[in-house]
């Protein structure tokens, strides 16, 4: 039997120039035993509007959102196996880490962090793969 593919959380329909906010990207996709979460950027959970902040505050917004998304899908931060973090500057890595460490209990998931140019002036993007 072929493994199930299911859109758990569909695209965000907020008007925004950011490609990650368009309709061509699902937010949480289940494939077999795993959940794949798109690269999240900081948004206000109430309004869905973009939030501009510091690396620390954007990290906090994103991980709070990620926690909600995973729990709504029946998973949790404890079930995350791999995280990818993109930062606008690697000099900000300690500021991200300080917040990040508070969200994951020991042992935290595997993770890669890299510096890159990010769309629309965001400072942080975080994506993950978790067990469903």
């Amino acid at each position, binding site marked *: 039997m*072929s*493994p199930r*593919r299911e*859109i758990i959380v*569909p*695209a965000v329909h907020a008007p925004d*120039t*950011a*490609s*990650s906010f*368009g*309709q*061509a*990207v*699902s*937010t*949480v*996709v*289940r*494939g*077999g035993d*795993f959940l*794949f*979460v*798109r*690269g999240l950027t900081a948004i206000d959970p109430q309004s869905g509007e973009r939030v501009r902040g510091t690396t620390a505050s954007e990290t906090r917004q994103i991980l709070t959102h990620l926690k909600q998304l995973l729990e709504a899908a029946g998973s949790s931060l404890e079930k995350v196996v791999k995280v*990818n973090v*993109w930062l606008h500057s690697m000099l900000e890595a300690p500021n991200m880490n300080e917040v990040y460490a508070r969200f994951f209990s020991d042992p935290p998931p595997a993770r890669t962090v*890299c510096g*890159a*140019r*990010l*769309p*629309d002036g965001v400072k942080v*993007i975080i*994506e993950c*793969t978790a067990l469903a």
Partner: protein
Amino acid sequence: MTEKLPRSVVEPKNPRLNVSRGANLPHVPGIRVGDYIFLSGMGPIDPRTGERNHGPIAEQIRTTLSNMRHMLESADSSLERVVRVHVVLADISDMAEMDRVYREFFPVDPPARTAWSMQLRFGNGCEIECVALAN
């Protein structure tokens, strides 16, 4: 989970798209393991010549995603089975144009996607990789 999951190489039916093998690079186009297919990052290669296509970014994205479709279909999967995509652009200002073309390939229930920009080799404007479910 003591039994070993079968692991096999995914290769394109069109040998001109087997870039890593052609260039003697130390990676394969993709790996299937269990129910999952992991494709290597793909650049804009003209499927008729095997040469890089450095036209406008829209064309590069279209070429790359067409080749990704071919790669997945060669492995008995399809774009509809993709769960996660990474899009890397050489130029961050190509984001909107990338998204416009990308939608043609994923019109309904698109995969999770992350897109960013960093340096790419060979003057490529894009590199795209994905994880898909096997059929």
